[in-house]
């Protein structure tokens, strides 16, 4: 394993993932869902993670949370949250990390909240799990959290049940719950996908504001480039379980280095531009049991050469980011 991409090892990192591989043992053999994923998130920084469905975006988030669905397991690599190694912890130890060091926001706020408990009960439960506050103190903190996420009339709303909130308000409650234990890192898995477009902007703005104020690192998993452009500081592009490009958001969006990233950018319609047909990348992402040798993208890549079919590209520094592409690492032939 040669890692050309060396992030600074520092406690200032909210998340430090190195060489993470996740495997699913099945009857037909072991499927590698994530392969050698490395990425870092600083405190107060938002890292967007993009890719097609099945690229491993959500899987990376779940692995960090220690919530991989069995039989999935971390096969190799290291995960550090706030400087503490977490990939080798027991389920009980991991449970005390979740909520206090790493929080989560999931896609659908309707199904994320337990319908039979008021939002106050769920907030107070979470706060008390991660602090020694009394019930009354926890309630005061819960009201404060609801105010922070912009819920009007928080003192009354705290006793309401999830079904009494609108979709956007519910996602605010979910964000309040994610923040309740003061985590250093939040995994936001498609946090705006289930919301109206008008609400999406409010939620991403709120997320951005809160992560700046609290110094919380955010892993923003999404397939929506627009959300990335508005919200993220840096962006990681994933393909077939690997990170293929990572860098500052302006650089990746305006000067993508990987052919796949360029293809992704090309497929976004520009507002006001009249085009007959959107650009698309021919072919489909390979299934986990049929990932090509060499570069996983080579069958679809317009620039691929003979070397791409045999040599697996590794991340190399390029500009302010890094890219895993032989075009930038010794040529394709």
């Amino acid at each position, binding site marked *: 394993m040669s890692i050309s991409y060396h992030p600074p090892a520092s406690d200032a990192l909210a998340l430090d993932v190195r060489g993470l591989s996740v495997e699913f043992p099945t009857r037909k053999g072991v499927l590698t869902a994530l392969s050698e994923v490395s990425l870092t998130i600083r405190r107060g920084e938002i890292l967007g993670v993009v890719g097609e469905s099945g690229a491993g975006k959500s899987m990376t988030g779940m692995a960090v949370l220690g919530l991989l669905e069995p039989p999935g397991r971390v096969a190799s690599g290291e995960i550090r949250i706030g400087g503490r190694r977490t990939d080798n912890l027991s389920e009980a130890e991991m449970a005390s990390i979740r909520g206090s060091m790493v929080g989560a926001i999931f896609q659908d706020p309707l199904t994320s909240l337990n*319908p039979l408990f008021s939002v106050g009960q769920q907030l107070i439960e979470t706060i008390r*799990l991660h602090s020694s506050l009394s019930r009354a103190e926890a309630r005061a903190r819960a009201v404060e959290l609801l105010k922070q996420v912009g819920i009007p009339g928080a003192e009354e709303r705290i006793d309401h049940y999830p079904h009494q909130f609108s979709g956007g308000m519910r996602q605010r409650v979910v964000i309040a719950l994610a923040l309740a234990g003061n985590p250093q890192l939040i995994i936001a898995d498609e946090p705006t996908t289930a919301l109206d477009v008008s609400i999406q902007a409010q939620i991403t703005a709120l997320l951005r504001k809160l992560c700046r104020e609290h110094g919380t690192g955010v892993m923003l998993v999404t397939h929506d480039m627009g959300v990335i452009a508005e919200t993220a500081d840096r962006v990681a592009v994933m393909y077939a379980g690997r990170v293929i490009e990572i860098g500052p958001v302006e650089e990746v969006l305006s000067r993508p280095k990987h052919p796949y990233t360029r293809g992704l950018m090309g497929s976004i319609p520009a507002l006001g531009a009249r085009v007959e047909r959107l650009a698309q990348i021919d072919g489909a992402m390979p299934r986990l049991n049929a990932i090509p040798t060499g570069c996983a993208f080579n069958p679809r890549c317009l620039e691929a050469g003979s070397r791409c079919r045999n040599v697996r590209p590794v991340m190399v520094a390029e500009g302010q980011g890094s890219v895993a592409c032989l075009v930038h690492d010794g040529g394709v032939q």
Partner: protein
Amino acid sequence: MIAFLVKRVGNAILVMLTVAFFAFLIFRFLGDPVEMMVNESATQVERDELRSRLGLNDGFLVQYLRFVTNAAQGQFGLSWRNQQNVITLIGERFPATFELVIIATILSLAIGIPLGVFTAIGRGRWWAEGLQFSSIVGVSLPSFFVGIILILAFSVSLGWLPGYGRGEVVQLGWWSTGLLTPSGRAAIVLPALSLSLFQITLVMRLVRAEMLEILRADFIKFARARGVKRRALWFRHALKNCLMPVVTLTAMQVGNLIAFALVTETVFQWPGMGMLFMQAVTFVDIPVMAAYLCIVSFIFVTLNTFVDIAYAVIDPRLRAA
């Protein structure tokens, strides 16, 4: 909500009227009441006189309405066997059956719910699969057989618990309770266990199925992501979401338990309504049978109506609707 309640109560009344109709048919047309009541040597004049005194010459509808009116006031006439007021007879026996059914229900919930949770969270482990398999036995064994086995094991062989009767009872007003005396408490164990075995397995299998479903829900995953510990996850977040069908099942099954109690009471010589009914059948004591039918149906229908109200109490989403 009020319109809904009115509709439910209206349905309940309709069902009760139908049941009363069948009870009336039994009462009126199963054999000739006059033949049953009079002395064999009674003259035709005496018979005709009794017939008109009982109102048996009135029209069908008039008789039915009279029956319903009386039944609604708890008047089911006299037992043909011992000339006692039927409602008094049933009133004397009701506490025994009620206590048996309540204890059996409590047992089925107290044992069935935890077993359901454990078999769900331990799925794939040998002990959970073993329990799940043995629950099939519980569902399949007939109630009287379970009763006999229990008597054989704990009463005859081990001699730990009494195998028949109700023990000493204490009179609280018109209510006689066996729960306040040691012998009464000992006597209720075996019949209650025998009666509840089927319910235990039913509750257990239901809770298991519901738990397996709920544990896959997003809010469980999100609760884990918030750091909720496994115990709270299972018994607080997941279990509460499983309780709705359990409430339905339990309330419905209380009616069934009263019906099943007939068998259990016979096996254990338990002096409840079921035994009274069995005796009434033997003696063709039709007023008692009609009254039993009406009262058991009334309990059934009332419980079902309360289930709907209980839904609203458990699930806040239904309160506004």
